[in-house]
């Protein structure tokens, strides 16, 4: 179980790097969905024994993060007719290098943090790496929809960090967080859709110009 969890965590970092390197929005969303499935597997894999708590958390995570949100984002790109990120503020090669740097930094920071003994030592560095990569995507891309993807990766990082505490956090709070994220993305998706209607573009840099 421990090894399986380790492999899942490594695959999560790989999906982060993959999302960082693709320009096509649909591939980004597919990467995000794959990451959702991996995140859903984790609570079951790191739980000391199979409990209803872990299984329901896994199911809830998978439904929201691997099915509903990607489906919704896919709907949004179809409606808004955006296909790819044309010119990110930081290029794809540079952002991939930044991502690799972020992974290194995450491991360096995690090794210095005074942490209690965790069920899975890789959990903290991977969560920090995911957090930072989400932040890179959020800040360096121009298309509003990719920024939503970046926000979701950021949230996945926070979720991973939360997994270190699954034993002590009540189940309802976690479901509440999932619901919050879902509603947040829902609103963002609708806003993005309306921006696209109004401005004929999803380029966030153009939102600085005031129009009547």
């Amino acid at each position, binding site marked *: 179980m421990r090894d399986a969890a380790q492999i899942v965590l490594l695959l999560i970092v790989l999906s982060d*790097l993959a999302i960082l390197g693709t320009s096509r929005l649909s591939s980004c969303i597919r990467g995000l969905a794959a990451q959702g499935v991996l995140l859903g597997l984790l609570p079951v894999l790191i739980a000391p024994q199979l409990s209803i708590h872990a299984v329901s958390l896994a199911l809830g995570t998978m439904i929201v993060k691997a099915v509903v949100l990607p489906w919704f984002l896919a709907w949004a790109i179809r409606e808004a007719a955006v296909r790819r990120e044309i010119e990110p503020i930081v290029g794809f090669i540079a952002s991939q290098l930044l991502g690799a740097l972020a992974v290194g930094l995450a*491991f360096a920071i995690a090794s210095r943090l005074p942490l209690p003994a965790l069920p899975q030592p890789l959990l903290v*560095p991977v969560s920090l790496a995911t957090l930072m990569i989400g932040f890179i995507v959020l800040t360096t891309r121009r298309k509003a929809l990719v920024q939503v993807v970046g926000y979701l990766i950021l949230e996945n990082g926070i979720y991973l960090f939360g997994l270190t505490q699954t034993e002590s956090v009540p189940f309802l709070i976690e479901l509440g967080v999932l619901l919050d994220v879902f509603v947040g993305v829902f609103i963002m998706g609708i806003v993005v859709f309306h921006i696209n209607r109004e401005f004929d573009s999803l380029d966030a840099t153009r939102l600085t110009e005031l129009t009547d």
Partner: protein
Amino acid sequence: MSGSELIALGILGVVAPALPGIAGKTKSLLTGRRGPPVLQLYADLRKLLGKGAVYSRTTTWVFRAAPVVVLVTLFVAALLLPVDGREAPARFTGDLVAFAGLLALGRFALVLAGLDTGSSFEGLGASREVTIASFAEPALLLCFIALVLVTGDLSLSGMLGSPLAAAWPRAGASLSLVGISLFVLLLAENSRVPVDDPATHLELTMIHEVIVLDHSGPDLALILYGSAFKLTLFGVLVLGVFVPRAGLSTPAALALLVAGLGVVAVAVGVVESAMARLRLVRVPQLLVGAGALALFATILQLA
């Protein structure tokens, strides 16, 4: 030194020209064509060796030396690799840098020969080859660094020999990342599909093929054999990481070597028929991705 390394090297030299054939055959079969026979390259080499060479008047000794330098550097590099899975004929601390350097020297000679012809096409190919190499070489060294950290041994014989087999249960994740990264490098260094198309004959899209346009006869034979041998060397690297053979008896290790090289060639063929060639501007991104994988493997070992 026992005999098995030399036998393994001999096998490597003999089977090398079959590898591009197997890759090409796989590609043909997967796309519903019959394709050239697997052993076509052997016939081509024999034909070319029987011909005379034609040299342009603008070329100098640089051009004539290149095929020999390419082949010799590859042979010397092969001496550093534990082809039979245990021990290389030559080993010393830090020979991994020598291995990368020898490959770079061979490429340098080939690129100089391309520039020596004075043809703009070959200059174009030389510039592309060097551009790609500048991304591939750091990635190769990063792979080696990760392997050094996994096995704690600073020579190729140790990295790919018995310490590696012992490291798999402990560092399987890093090793698989390194293996995947090495396979991407195999495709890039040997001008296979996502980076270059070995079948193309349009000068504007070629990378490796365009540099050797002016070579003919025995020179071309040496270069063709050299590129097949380089593919085999990278195949041995990938195989060494994924299939440690240190604990096996000599015949089993050698049989596994030949079978494994066949599998690598088939994998190359499958990738070639499943993917299209990437646009030239996207190639560095692929190689940076491979480098990022190797870096990640390194970080995992440091943590």
